[in-house]
């Protein structure tokens, strides 16, 4: 996070004030970041926020309009893609249709000025196939492969070159749900095994949260916040980030009082709420449009008769269960609370078995601790 101190020893990729404009569109806008060696880094954001462009700036398919990209401490300005020590797994896989699986995988090694011998090449291709659990598929044509298999071939084709950094552009987007889960785990294991820095682009927050050691949340070409999944989840700096990472209940209002880390805000219908500022969040002024953010698992639900003391919370609201989903370890409730609107509550098994659970239509009380609620700027 200290991208300004030039050329961190342990940084594989650094952006120094990088911008990329396409005409009037600022696809990437003054981005500075650094990616630690050996980490699993993700660009997360909605479609069109500049994730792919960031990746293409690293690969060298785009040249920055301003600033520069550093790979392993070296400035990459003007360096063409084929001279950069990174490899990419394309969203469409981009396997060469006129080559066999083995020829696809060996392609990178064959372009080297010091080509490996035929037997050496064979050996490395076989090892790569084994690494992605595709042994014996070397002679197949690429179009005979299923989506998941093509994905593995694309991975092997990139990793066989032992790049400094592996770039992955929404690599799992084309796979079905089940396969995606499997590949997420496999990718993570693979990254740990090979020890290469992975940079992943995704719009799927679950994917980013479950796989990455570091996430950079982008919006309109700029970095909104970056940090570990836990930091982003526990300390989102604004409503956009909180909304993007995990599920959150929001209550909109404006700041009425600030007292150290505690902020008081008032909703449109006059109710006051208390919440905490988060680390690194922008300064709040009285009157600023904010939202109170409460995570579903930090919200407690109890019987209609209970009060804040019973719930061990600072607040208590009456509500009516609209929906209940049993998730095993947790039960998820959607509760209609008069002063707030719909609130999502994730109730752990321990509490559920004590209270006996609630059914749709039942009236309940919900609450939370003020120091577990965050007051976040709306933008």
């Amino acid at each position, binding site marked *: 996070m200290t991208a300004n101190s030039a050329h961190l020893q342990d940084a594989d990729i650094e952006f120094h004030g990088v911008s990329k404009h396409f005409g009037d569109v600022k696809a990437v806008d003054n981005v500075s970041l650094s990616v630690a060696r050996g980490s699993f880094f993700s660009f997360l954001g909605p479609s069109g926020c500049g994730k792919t462009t960031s990746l293409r700036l690293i690969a060298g398919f785009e040249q920055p309009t301003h600033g520069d990209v550093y790979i392993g401490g070296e400035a990459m300005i003007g360096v*063409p893609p084929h001279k950069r020590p990174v490899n990419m797994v394309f969203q469409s896989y981009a396997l060469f249709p006129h080559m066999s699986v083995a020829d696809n995988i060996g*392609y990178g090694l064959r*372009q080297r000025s010091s080509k490996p011998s035929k037997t050496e090449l064979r050996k490395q291709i076989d090892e790569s196939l084994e690494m992605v659990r595709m042994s014996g598929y070397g002679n197949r044509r690429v*179009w005979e492969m299923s989506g998941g298999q093509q994905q593995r071939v694309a991975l092997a084709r990139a990793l066989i070159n032992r790049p400094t950094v592996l770039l992955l552009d929404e690599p799992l987007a084309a796979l079905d749900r089940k396969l995606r889960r499997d590949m997420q785990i496999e990718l993570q294991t693979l990254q740990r095994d090979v020890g290469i820095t992975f940079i992943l682009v995704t719009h799927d927050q679950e994917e980013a949260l479950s796989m990455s050691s570091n996430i950079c949340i982008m919006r309109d070409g700029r970095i909104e916040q970056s940090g570990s999944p836990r930091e982003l989840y526990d300390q989102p700096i604004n409503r956009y980030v909180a909304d993007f990472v995990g599920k959150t209940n929001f209550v909109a209002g404006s700041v009425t009082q600030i007292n150290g880390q505690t902020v008081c805000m008032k909703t449109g219908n006059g109710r006051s709420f208390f919440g905490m500022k988060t680390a690194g969040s922008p300064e709040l002024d009285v009157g600023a449009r904010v939202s109170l953010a409460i995570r579903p698992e930090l919200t407690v639900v109890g019987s209609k008769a209970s009060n804040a003391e019973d719930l061990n919370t600072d607040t208590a609201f009456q509500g009516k269960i609209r929906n209940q989903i049993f998730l095993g370890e947790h039960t998820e409730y959607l509760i209609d609370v008069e002063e707030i609107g719909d609130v999502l509550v994730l109730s752990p098994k321990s509490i559920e078995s004590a209270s006996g659970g609630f059914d749709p239509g039942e009236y309940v009380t919900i609450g939370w601790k003020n120091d577990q609620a965050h007051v976040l700027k709306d933008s």
Partner: protein
Amino acid sequence: MVMRVYSFVVYLFLYVPIGIIVLFSFNSGRHASEFVGLSSKWYGKALSNPFMMDALTSSLIIAFSAATLSSIMGTTAALALQRMRGPVRVIFDGLIYISIMIPGIVIGIATLVALVTVFDILNPVLAAIWPDDNRPPKLSLGYISVIAAHTLFTMSLVIVLVRARITGMDRTLIEASQDLYATPWQTFCQITLPQISPAILAGFLLSFTFSFDDFIISFFVAGANTTLPIYIFSSIRRGITPEVNAIGTMVLVVSLTLLIIAQVLLRSRENKSSRDN
């Protein structure tokens, strides 16, 4: 019903004359008007006719050279056009489509005039700067001018075919190749060329057929040389013989074969790329 009869009549008009030529090429009689019996003797006659064989050889050489040149030049032009942006590309694309539609006779006259003018300018220059005392070479109409004219005309065909193929090609394949350390030249040889080669080959075959069958342009610029269509034309003036029918049938078979191969090449490519997606 009326439409059906109508289209049947149209097809009849189109194909009956061709059918008659093919049929009468197997006529054992010597007159084109009555069918006496089946025989392949006119094919033997045609193939042992030295004038006809000379004309055939010229046509083959010309068609092969023109097709080769236009494939190479057309492909490079298509690749260059692909890199162009904006209005320049639109203008060039337009010019290429127009040049396909220009009637052969216009190309014939234009090429003839252009060549003769150039020869008139170049020949004295050549004579003046020729170092030897020997006769300087004198540029004149002949094989080369036919090849040049055919190349000119068929190049646009190749450009259009190759352009279509390049446009349909997945650009990320090129990027993937670059990403895997291939230099631009390596990428061209290993990715771009294999991807567009069916279109180039199809362009070659179409150009070959066009050049091989062309009468109008050749007639203008061939000078004293004779190509197969010119030979057929001049022998018809002495009456239609079964031999001419035999030659015509052979030309027909060769042309159709090449055209069908070209079609198959273009098709198979489309199918495969759609399956890849």
